[in-house]
């Protein structure tokens, strides 16, 4: 592999460069080949270790320490931080809100993404135009989305309430009540991420080989039947991907509920009675709010990590079941086709 004849990269050592440099160059060349891959991957691993992996693992250590934002570590705390946090009604309120907002945003979103993707999967004119259209909200920052929808859902003189009154219904206290607040916040999340997930699902739909559908059509499957018995089982890995990413993102929700709070001052109170405070908002409050208690903040982070892990595993189990329900159906079809 190592060639020694070209001049370009030889070290400029005057007239002696004929023989000795060639050996040096061979060595250098071998070193180049051996070391380069490691040098190329090292920026990622070094930076990721410092800013990603180490902080995540070190969270466990901070969570069992007495640690103040301003004055630093004051010895071990054992599991006192966890005990204290788990005894706070506010923590459980935050957990309830987070899971509720997560369900309200992810379940309708995945269903709608499936439907819109199915519509986009037709042989459309100006495909790219429609695809870009559904993606527009993705470039709007959650903070901006939060401000826009916060105004639309304003309790007084908000557009949504004005529309409700116009159609003869009672206005809803979107900010003051628990479930309406969750619905409003989930709407923001759905708005920003629906288009993105639609395109992910659409891509998976387009990757389904045509003969699978042909087999279904020969078997006399209706459009709806094709969708449930062919399309959904075939895109299962992508659905799992969408569900897991929306679990990881959704349970860490912070921006939208923070912006939904129009009260001056208290940044992350999550409403007068904490009716839409989330776990990440609580985490921020503990660490950077009035308490400056980084130990407890880290304990909350670690607890949330566990919850994300558990819900991801549940999701994994659920999507596996979709597979086992879809699998035999496909098997039947193939057999039928062969016998026909």
């Amino acid at each position, binding site marked *: 592999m190592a060639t020694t004849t*070209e001049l370009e990269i030889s070290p400029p050592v005057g007239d002696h460069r004929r023989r000795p440099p060639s050996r040096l160059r061979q060595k250098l060349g071998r070193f180049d080949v051996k070391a380069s891959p490691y040098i190329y991957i090292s920026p990622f691993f070094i930076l990721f270790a410092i800013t990603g992996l180490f902080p995540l693992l070190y969270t466990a250590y901070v969570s069992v320490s007495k640690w103040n934002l301003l004055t630093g570590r004051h010895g071990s705390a054992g599991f006192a931080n966890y005990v204290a946090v788990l005894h706070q009604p506010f923590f459980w309120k935050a957990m309830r809100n987070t899971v509720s907002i997560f369900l309200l945003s992810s379940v309708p979103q995945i269903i709608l993404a499936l439907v819109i993707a199915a519509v*986009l999967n037709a042989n459309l004119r100006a495909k790219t135009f429609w695809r870009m259209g559904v993606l527009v909200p993705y470039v709007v920052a959650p903070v901006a989305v939060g401000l826009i929808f916060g105004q639309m859902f304003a309790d007084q003189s908000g557009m949504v309430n004005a529309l409700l009154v116009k159609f003869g219904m009672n206005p809803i206290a979107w900010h003051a009540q628990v479930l309406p607040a969750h619905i409003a916040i989930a709407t923001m999340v759905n708005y920003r991420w629906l288009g993105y997930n639609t395109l992910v699902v659409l891509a998976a739909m387009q990757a389904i080989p045509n003969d699978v559908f042909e087999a279904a059509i020969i078997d006399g499957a209706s459009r709806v039947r094709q969708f449930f018995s062919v399309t959904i089982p075939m895109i299962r890995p992508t659905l799992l991907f969408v569900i897991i990413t929306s679990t990881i993102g959704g349970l860490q929700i912070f921006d939208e509920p923070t912006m939904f709070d129009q009260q001056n001052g208290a940044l992350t109170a999550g409403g007068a009675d904490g009716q839409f405070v989330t776990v990440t908002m609580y985490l921020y409050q503990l660490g950077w709010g009035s308490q400056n208690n980084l130990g407890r903040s880290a304990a909350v982070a670690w607890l949330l990590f566990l919850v994300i892990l558990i819900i991801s595993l549940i999701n994994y189990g659920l999507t596996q079941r979709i597979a086992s329900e879809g699998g035999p159906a496909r098997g039947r079809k193939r057999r039928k086709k062969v016998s026909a």
Partner: protein
Amino acid sequence: MSAPSIPVIRQSAGAGAARAAARRNAQKGAGADRRPGWITYGILTVVLLIAIYPMYYAFLIASSTKEDVARHPIPSLIPGSHLWENMVKVVTSDIGFWAALRNSLIVSGVAAISVVLFSTLAGYAFAKLRFRGRGPLLVFVIATTAIPTQLGVVPLFLVMKQLHLIGKLPAVILPGLVTAFGVFWMTQYLESALPYELIEAARVDGASMIRTFWSIALPAARPAATMLGLFAFVANWTNYFWPLVVLGAVPGKTTLPVALKMLQAHYYADYSQVMAGVFVSVLPLLLLFIVAGRQLVSGIMQGAVKG
């Protein structure tokens, strides 16, 4: 408008899109997929209007006065005449708008360039070079794409404190310099888009390893690198939590999303001004979307099939 040919798609949107296009053409030939009826377009038009309306709503409120907003909760579809006035108020208010805009541009720009460079370097090594530990390390990268690193926020803050970076821009930039997703993405792309023959030819010609990367791998990676850069830019531009933690709501020292929150906190009674702020902050990314939205679309769709 005629459909671009498949080699053109391969050039502009990558091999995956080209394969998809080839498949679509095959479908057309088989007559399996006829043009859909008006109901389909009707549904899509409604979806499109819902996607666009909230931004138009912000624009409508931003162009009216706070009295108008109070009087007409459902804004008329014709914009008012106070947009410029409200925008001037926002950019000259005490939230430090210009500094926030500059900071956001620096953070997002540096992060995008860095993510592209380091991801392409690592992706090239994983896809095309042989070295001990390659398999396990790649598995590690893929596994870390699913880790919620935002939960390491407390120690990350402590790291920045140790480095005396609290309140300074590098503290925001540092965690955004690399992403596991980026490395995985470039590995996937280069595996299929960069033939070994090209690398070998460059090596036989005597190019050093880094020279080979620079003049062979980097140009080949361009379509995927563009998409990756766009995603990194958008992700950093819209990020709120980490800049808030590490920079705080300090006028002139923070990024646009945090400045927007300050705008809300200071002027929450005057919503036309808050919406003017929203409008001004959304505008740069909307322009980016008009120019590069096509790449974002194909980026998302390619990532989905491979990921």
